């Protein structure tokens, strides 16, 4: 069976479950994103799929195709129906394992067969109709089609259907009053509520029929009345009940582990897209990035998705920022005052790469993303320090390990280096480290308070966190591309709200 994560390879849930959380997850707050996600959909068991990183451009493209297909609501619905259908089959199987009555066990098993293969067939029909474009769904279509057409499956389904159809014909009729209740076999299709509904039809604009579906006997096992009814029916249909018993007895579980794994993967995709869509509904942009093989990038209106999650709950806004870098530019240096949104931007930057590499949409308005397969982060860790020396040593050794593995398909996000060293030393060390990283051809995103570094090279993009320049130095959390300060205060606010002539013109004409 194919996997939705790796082309031409299988991936069992057992393997996925063994994957460790990537090292950069906590720095980028991705662990918080995932925790919120798992809570929303109550699907903790799917978390390890977030750790299945892609190791090539092709793999990321393979996943993007799937997300693209699932963007078609019709297909997403068909996939959801498949998940539900198999889920019902699994439920029947569980019921058969729980109930005591032998006859009931046999029936649950029979129903399981029908639901299980029906779900597959429905998905095939939907695939036929919609024609998915992704390699994964194309392959899945083939696999399912082949499975359904094996003679064993066909025979099994036919036998189950014969029995099930006969059982569907069984019916009963009860009369209940305060003195007695009687049972007979004359099923009466007349619905007492129908004439009432018809009389009210004028009043009701949409008369939706609500079937009497809340059975007073919701338990899996049979209630005394149900047992009584079945006993009466068995008397009349002895042959059918015997047939069911002999058919059901022979059955083991027909549910295959491959399909159950596939269901998990599908559910992961669906839940993740649903979650990202919620951001869209809350007004945050979400976009599928254009993955490229060179090093040009732009992320318009990007933001920290975890901050968005938190702030939208609290009804607070999140500032959107633009990051861009030409192919020849090697590093992005972010400077500016503390608490100005620099760390948040670093997270947003890293998250875009993470989601992009996973083949998923990213938290940004427009995004062109160089494909990378490795993310390295180094966030200054204030806590857990064991003395100044210890901290520097610790930091340096972590950086050393990083230098050993960084390659041209890496991004490196550094958030405040060497804070425990004297400034002049820190500057020298930073410069040297940057040189080494850049010689590996990695993309470096460096948040620092030593702005001198930003001036070192033409190949560095300089981003500066802005403050309100009315003397109060309040933070705007807006980080803009500029070499030095000096832009007038009013203009910067006008820029910030895009209220100059051409922007207003553009905004008004967009509608």
């Amino acid at each position, binding site marked *: 069976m194919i996997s939705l994560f790796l082309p031409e390879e299988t991936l069992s849930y057992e393997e996925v479950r063994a994957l460790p959380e990537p090292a950069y997850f906590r720095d980028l707050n991705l662990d918080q994103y995932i925790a919120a996600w798992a809570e929303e959909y109550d699907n903790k068991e799917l978390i390890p799929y977030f750790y299945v990183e892609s190791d090539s451009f092709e793999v990321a493209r393979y996943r993007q195709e799937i997300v693209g297909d699932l963007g078609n609501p019709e297909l997403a619905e068909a996939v959801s129906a498949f998940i539900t259908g198999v889920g019902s089959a699994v439920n*029947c199987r569980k*019921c*058969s394992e729980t109930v005591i*009555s032998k006859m*009931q066990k046999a*029936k*649950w098993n029979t*129903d399981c067969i029908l639901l299980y293969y029906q779900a597959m067939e429905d998905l095939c029909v939907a695939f036929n109709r919609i024609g998915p474009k992704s390699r994964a769904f194309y392959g899945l279509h083939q696999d399912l089609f082949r499975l359904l057409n094996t003679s064993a499956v066909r025979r099994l389904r036919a036998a189950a259907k014969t029995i099930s159809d006969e*059982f569907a014909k069984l019916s*009963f*009729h*009860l*009369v*209940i009053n*305060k*003195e*007695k*209740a*009687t*049972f*007979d076999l*004359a*099923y*009466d299709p*007349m*619905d*007492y*509520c129908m004439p*009432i509904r018809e*009389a009210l039809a*004028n*009043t*009701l*604009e949409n*008369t*939706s029929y*609500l079937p*009497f*579906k*809340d*059975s*007073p006997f919701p338990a*899996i096992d049979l*209630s*005394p*009345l*149900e047992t009584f009814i*079945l006993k*009466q*029916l068995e008397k009349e249909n002895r042959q059918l009940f015997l047939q069911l018993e002999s058919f059901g007895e022979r059955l083991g579980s027909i549910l295959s582990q491959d399909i159950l794994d596939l269901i998990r993967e599908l559910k992961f995709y669906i839940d993740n897209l649903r979650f990202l869509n919620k951001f869209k509904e809350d007004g945050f942009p979400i976009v599928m990035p254009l993955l490229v093989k060179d090093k040009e990038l732009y992320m318009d209106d990007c933001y920290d998705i975890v901050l968005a999650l938190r702030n939208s709950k609290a009804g607070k806004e999140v500032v959107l920022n633009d990051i861009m870098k030409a192919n020849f530019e090697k590093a992005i240096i972010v400077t500016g005052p503390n608490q100005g949104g620099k760390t948040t931007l670093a997270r947003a930057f890293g998250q875009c790469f993470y989601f992009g590499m996973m083949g998923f949409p990213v938290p940004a308005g427009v995004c062109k993303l160089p494909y990378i397969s490795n993310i390295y982060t180094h966030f200054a860790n204030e806590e857990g320090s064991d003395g100044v020396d210890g901290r520097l040593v610790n930091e340096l050794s972590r950086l050393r390990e990083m230098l050993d593995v960084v390659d041209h398909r890496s991004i490196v996000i550094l958030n405040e280096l060497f804070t425990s060293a004297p400034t002049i030393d820190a500057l020298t060390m930073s410069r040297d480290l940057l040189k080494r990283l850049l010689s590996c051809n990695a993309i470096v995103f460096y948040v620092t308070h030593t702005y001198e570094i930003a001036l070192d090279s033409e190949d560095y993009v300089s981003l500066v966190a802005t403050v309100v320049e009315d003397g109060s130095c*309040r933070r705007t959390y807006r980080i803009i591309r500029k070499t030095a300060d000096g832009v007038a205060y*009013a203009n910067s606010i*006008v820029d910030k*709200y895009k*209220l*100059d002539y051409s922007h*207003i*013109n553009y*905004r*008004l004409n967009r509608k």
Partner: protein
Amino acid sequence: MKVNLLNRPGYTEAPDIAPFKNDLVQDLVLDPILEIMGKGDSYVQQQCRTALLTPLTDRANLLHRQSALRDAIRNSKTVLQLYATVAEVVTDISNYKTSHRNGNPLPAVRVLNAVEQLDLLAHGLERLKDVIVATYGHFTGVIFRDFYDAFLKEFNADFVRLVHEKAALLRKSGDDDGEIQISGRIGTGLKSEGFIVNMLSEYQSKRKHDIIDSLFSTKIRKNEIRISYDDLDLNRDCRDLESAGLLHVASTFDGFSVELMRMFNSLRQQLAFYHGCCNLYNQMKNLCFPVCFPELGMTGSHAITGEAFYDLGVALREKRLPATNDLTGEDTIAYLITGTNHGGKTTFIRSIGASQLMAQCGMFVPAKSMITQIFTGIYTHFVRNEDVTMTSGKLEEELRRLSKIVDCMSSGSLILLNESFATTSERDGAAIAEDIIRAFYDNEITCFFVTHIYAYAKKAYDAGIPRMQFLQAERTEEGERTYRMKQGEPGATGYGMELYDEIIGCR
């Protein structure tokens, strides 16, 4: 049944063209108007507020409202009677609901509650019908008449009888005097499913029952087997099934109750608007204020023109007609209003804004005459004295607000700017104003801009831009304020200093 008093049949709700409702209320001083409309009834006031703050762009719908409102004003007593009846019905039912909110878990009680609600609704229908029959012929306009006719046709005597009859039967069953027949099938896992209630009837005593059976029963049940109530488990199951069946039947009426409640609520809401308008109209007439129904052109047809506009909110509060202004819009798209403080500039644009808002709700307006177009959006941007957010500078707060407006507005909108961009240096303010007003102008957004930024006003005047009017708060030669606007060149006198004094404090 859809009530079409407020909106024409087939009208579909359009996107909100006045999304900044609290700003409108505050900037245009709408509260005194809403208070008069409500006349002590908070529901009426609330509904009028909603209607007034939801201006429309559909011309046919506005004409529909104007026509209904004219009829309502002629019959304001009947409107009140209708409104009061509907309000009583709604209150009775919601009181019943409140007192039975904590749903009793016993199915029999739940059935009885549903029945009682049903009775209340049927009773409400009868009450409303009595009023409609008694006042039939009062309204001369087609809109109220259509509503009367549709109501009488839909809720005829047969219908009400059926509701009462079925409710009575359900009540009997809930009281354990009924008999229920249920059919079902065998489903997944051999569980019973697909239940269907075949019959609900009054349970006859055994002897009678036999006779009726033999006389009327067409179906002779084969293989009828008695289920023994001595078996307590079976007895309990039968009772549970019976209750579930009764609840199912009761739920058949759910949609009906909801729909009827919706009709009553919608009727109450729509009548509240007309009742509120009548209150306002009568008060304006009592105070001898000019009032007229505006002539409405299509979007972009012509600018606002009219005689004797006045600030209704303030006039109602003071119970006195203030200075009025005429306006000849022709093809004007931008108005620059300058002049001394307390010269009536704000009052003037407020009177224009409130009139336009009322016009686009299908209401009469506070003016002697008004010809106007339908704007695709109505916005105000007045300077705020207090920094509500406590997080950002004043200019920042202003521009953020304006940016949100720009996000919503489109060509054909109306915006009233009052002393915007004054919280920065005059040079910066002038530059910002020029950009923004030019962008509005180029996009056919009608703009009234009250400003102290002389540098900008002078420059715009000198440039001789067509379709732009320059109005000034009039000051007689003795320096007395008339609170009237007159056309003319923006004057420089003391603007900068006044501004300085105002913002920084007296020198």
